[in-house]
């Protein structure tokens, strides 16, 4: 392969490193109204009244809106394919405010100063209600987060607003109780994953204006332009034909921008006033009123025989969706469906779950999407099992892991047709020196060095749901224009999709122009999430290019006056094999624009009945200070099977970035609330994401399988990479200290206090 598999520079790289104005707020019209919201100071309350006359009198204020001004049809902000699994439980502004930070009023004005002043002058009277802040108290509580009658669930996800249930369910294969009873060893544990913020460097932001046709144009930092169009149509009660959504460069997403966090407010303002407006979330707002990872408490039972044969896994997940149900019913599914199938020869498994409403900010999609929480729990339980059985945890995994060709009953019954997990684990063990370093070495100075291990999987798109499309056309001068609806949010998919196109069309990457995503001009794509773009959209690009190549040959045949079968096309020149006559691609492109009645443009769409999992193994080496509990990460090795890495540089950066986020999640990051439901870590001062001093050395390698259904053998990579640090570091800490810490993050305090108690 000439282009696929090459470490090609991202097409937008130089614009980004030289600081060109390419992000939403850099290119917003200068005359935008500034939009801000007044947020509730109470975790659960009814708004009795809002006195807005004083606010409206502030010079420069254009509009102040409250619950009385907005439509009363409920919708979800979750970016998902219709009908969304997430319940319709939102209003633009609701009289019932359900968490500290829930919007009470929208204020729009000429500049920030006047809007800030108006916000201060709004007088709100609240009827304060008791709140549910603990996920254990939510189910069947007398306090209802969503008592309203017009709440609705579009899908059968086991939701019941009168029980604070956003979703509930069960699936199983075999009789898990019977098998566990028959096992010689059963490890049982409950593992608590706190909410984490994606903390992308660019906060949520949206710009809106009306175009000459009177249509609402929405430029937003979003992963999901088409879903945002539907969400705005639902929220505003206007036809989708009146809305256009597009994205410029995006300053990071990680799933946060798979929820329409900021769009509805400026959209409402512009639709009502006819004036351009923008809303730029502060970091504080991004921390307190956004779409973090679901807090989950995952209870696991793993049963095995003394020789180390794992026979049964039972998982129960209690997930906290917060005040609204965005991604609640779907994230929880992955906590079982993408953890249990790591083990290939189970006689039985069971997976049960409840997703509850509480009075904290709504959760959402964050890289890993529930798999991260489930894998942390199951992998830690397996490490505890290894300890109990006195078997090396790497050996235990090699004995039990899923293998190529196996059916995975817990993974929708899919077969693994591409799986190099065994090679990943063996290579990782070699890289870190597992045999010499496991379990630990006392350094003699109060410090202990130890290692830990975990495996992970994810999916590649949502089977039978996700859609990717590509339009490719031949232009003058032999240039191809590729249009996609997937969203490059820094991942580099504009470039990797161009690589796929260049490979198919036998041309250089420079010949491919890429654009997207824009609901008016891009072919439909469900969006960049669920690890779908490389696998789903990539295949659409391949299909479109193959068809375009046929059309090019047909055009060449008519130009050469020969049969299409006689045409040989090498990407630059089409030759009539019988006569040796030839035309160049440039000439074909030019001919396509003169007296031509056959389009040299193709749109192809792709969806997949399967979601081939990428796999990986991660191993950490740490040094624990037994006096202070401080953990220093020395070395992290990751070996990943993402099928064919389309661009090894970008794949490597995905892995390194995902590991760093996973390390933050494991050791520092913790969304916490006060007793009144106030989010405590509302800035980067309190919410610590890793700096370059915290990540140790990250070493990444690839052990590739070949996925027949993916473009050039590719599977996904974006999400799987965040899943190993939490269990691997938990394991390493246990190997150093004997403490199995069952709640993230593993802070120094927890280790030091645990060691004191020992």
């Amino acid at each position, binding site marked *: 392969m000439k282009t696929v598999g090459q470490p090609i520079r991202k097409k937008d790289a130089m614009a980004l490193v030289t600081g060109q104005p390419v992000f939403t707020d850099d290119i917003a019209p200068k005359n935008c109204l500034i939009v801000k919201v007044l947020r509730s100071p109470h975790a659960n309350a009814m708004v009795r009244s809002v006195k807005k006359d004083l606010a409206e009198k502030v010079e420069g204020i254009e509009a102040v809106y409250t619950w009385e001004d907005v439509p009363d049809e409920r919708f979800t902000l979750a970016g998902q394919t219709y009908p969304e699994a997430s319940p319709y439980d939102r209003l633009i502004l609701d009289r019932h405010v359900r968490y500290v930070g829930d919007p009470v009023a929208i204020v729009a004005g000429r500049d920030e100063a006047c809007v800030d002043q108006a916000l201060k002058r709004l007088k709100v009277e609240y009827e304060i209600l008791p709140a549910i802040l603990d996920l254990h108290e939510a189910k069947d509580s007398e306090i209802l987060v969503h008592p309203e009658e017009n709440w609705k669930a579009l899908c059968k996800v086991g939701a019941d607003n009168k029980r604070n249930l956003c979703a509930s369910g069960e699936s199983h294969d075999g009789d898990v109780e019977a098998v566990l009873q028959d096992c010689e060893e059963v490890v049982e544990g409950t593992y608590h994953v706190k909410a984490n913020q994606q903390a992308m460097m660019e906060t949520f932001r949206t710009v809106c204006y009306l175009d000459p046709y009177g249509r609402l144009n929405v430029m937003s930092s979003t992963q999901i332009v088409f879903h945002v169009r539907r969400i705005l149509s639902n929220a505003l009660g206007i036809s989708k034909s009146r809305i256009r959504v597009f994205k410029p460069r995006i300053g990071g997403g990680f799933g946060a921008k798979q929820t329409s966090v900021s769009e509805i407010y400026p959209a409402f303002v512009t639709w009502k006033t006819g004036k351009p407006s923008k809303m730029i979330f502060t970091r504080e707002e991004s921390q307190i009123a956004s779409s973090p990872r679901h807090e989950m408490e995952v209870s696991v039972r793993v049963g095995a025989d003394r020789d180390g044969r794992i026979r049964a896994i039972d998982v129960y997940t209690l997930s906290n969706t917060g005040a609204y149900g965005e991604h609640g019913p779907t994230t929880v599914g992955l906590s079982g469906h993408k953890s249990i199938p790591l083990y290939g020869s189970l006689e039985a498994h069971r997976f049960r779950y409840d997703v509850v409403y509480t009075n904290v900010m709504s959760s959402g999609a964050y890289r890993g999407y529930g798999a991260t929480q489930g894998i942390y729990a199951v992998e830690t339980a397996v490490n505890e099992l290894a300890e109990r059985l006195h078997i090396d945890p790497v050996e235990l995994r090699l004995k039990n892991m899923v293998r190529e060709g196996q059916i995975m009953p817990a993974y929708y019954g899919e077969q693994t047709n591409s799986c190099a997990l065994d090679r990943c684990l063996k290579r990782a063990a070699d890289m870190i020196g597992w045999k010499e370093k496991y379990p630990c070495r006392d350094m003699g100075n109060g410090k202990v060095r130890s290692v830990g291990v975990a495996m992970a999987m994810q999916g590649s798109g949502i089977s039978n749901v996700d859609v990717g499309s590509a339009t490719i056309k031949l232009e003058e001068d032999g240039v191809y224009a590729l249009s996609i609806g997937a969203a490059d949010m820094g991942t580099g998919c504009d470039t990797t999709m161009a690589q796929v196109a260049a490979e198919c069309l036998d041309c250089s990457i420079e010949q491919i122009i890429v654009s997207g995503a824009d609901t008016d001009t891009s072919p439909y794509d469900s969006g960049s999430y669920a690890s779908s773009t490389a696998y789903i959209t990539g295949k659409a690009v391949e299909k479109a290019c193959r068809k375009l190549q046929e059309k090019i040959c047909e055009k060449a045949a008519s130009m050469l006056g020969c049969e299409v079968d006689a045409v040989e096309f090498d990407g630059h020149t089409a030759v009539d094999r019988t006569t040796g006559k030839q035309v160049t691609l440039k000439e074909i492109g030019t001919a396509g624009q003169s007296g031509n009645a056959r389009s040299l443009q193709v749109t192809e769409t792709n969806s997949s009945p399967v979601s081939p999992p990428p796999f990986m193994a991660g191993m950490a080496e740490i040094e624990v200070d037994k006096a202070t509990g401080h953990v220093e990460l020395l070395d992290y090795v990751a070996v990943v099977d993402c099928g064919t890495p389309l661009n090894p*540089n970008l794949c490597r950066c995905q892995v390194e970035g995902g590991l760093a986020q996973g390390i933050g999640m494991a050791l520092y990051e913790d969304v916490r609330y006060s007793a009144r439901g106030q989010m405590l870590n509302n800035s980067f001062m309190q919410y610590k994401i890793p700096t*370059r001093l915290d990540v140790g050395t990250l070493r990444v390698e690839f052990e590739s399988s070949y996925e027949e259904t993916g473009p050039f053998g590719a599977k996904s990579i974006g999400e799987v990479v965040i899943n190993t640090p939490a269990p691997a570091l938990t394991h390493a800490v246990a190997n150093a200290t004997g403490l199995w810490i069952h709640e993230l993050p593993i802070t120094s305090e927890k280790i030091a206090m645990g060691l004191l108690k020992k």
Partner: protein
Amino acid sequence: MKISLMLNGTKIEREIAPDLLLIDFVREEGCYSVKRGCETSGCGLCTVFLDEKPVLSCSVLAARADGHAVTTLEGLQKEAEEFGAFIADQGAEQCGFCNPGMIMNAIALFRENPDPTEEEMKEYLAGNLCRCSGYEGQLRGMKAFLEYKKQGGAV
């Protein structure tokens, strides 16, 4: 109040509000490379040079720049391109939002210390957060750039 300063080599005189922050001033002047990532002086995205020193423009009043020279990445395009190409060759720019601040600070480091060790680079840039890259690709890019400089700028 009125201030007068050199912004990327051009003299600017402007009437400003006394509480205007330098970050908002330079963005209003069209220097969009300067980004806001937090409100607590903790992310490094808004790094600019005040005279020759890197500062967080979110923590400096525009009034403080009166009579001084302010440089943003817009005024360092050649250096940004030369060094940035090495970040780009790793794919480590990723979303790009933190890049201008990091590149400003890296340029400041290289001016101060043309041959930094790995530890010195990590220390100096510890205040430049990045959520995409895991920092390793940035480090590889910096090392490759320093090697290139050592060879006299020839690849």
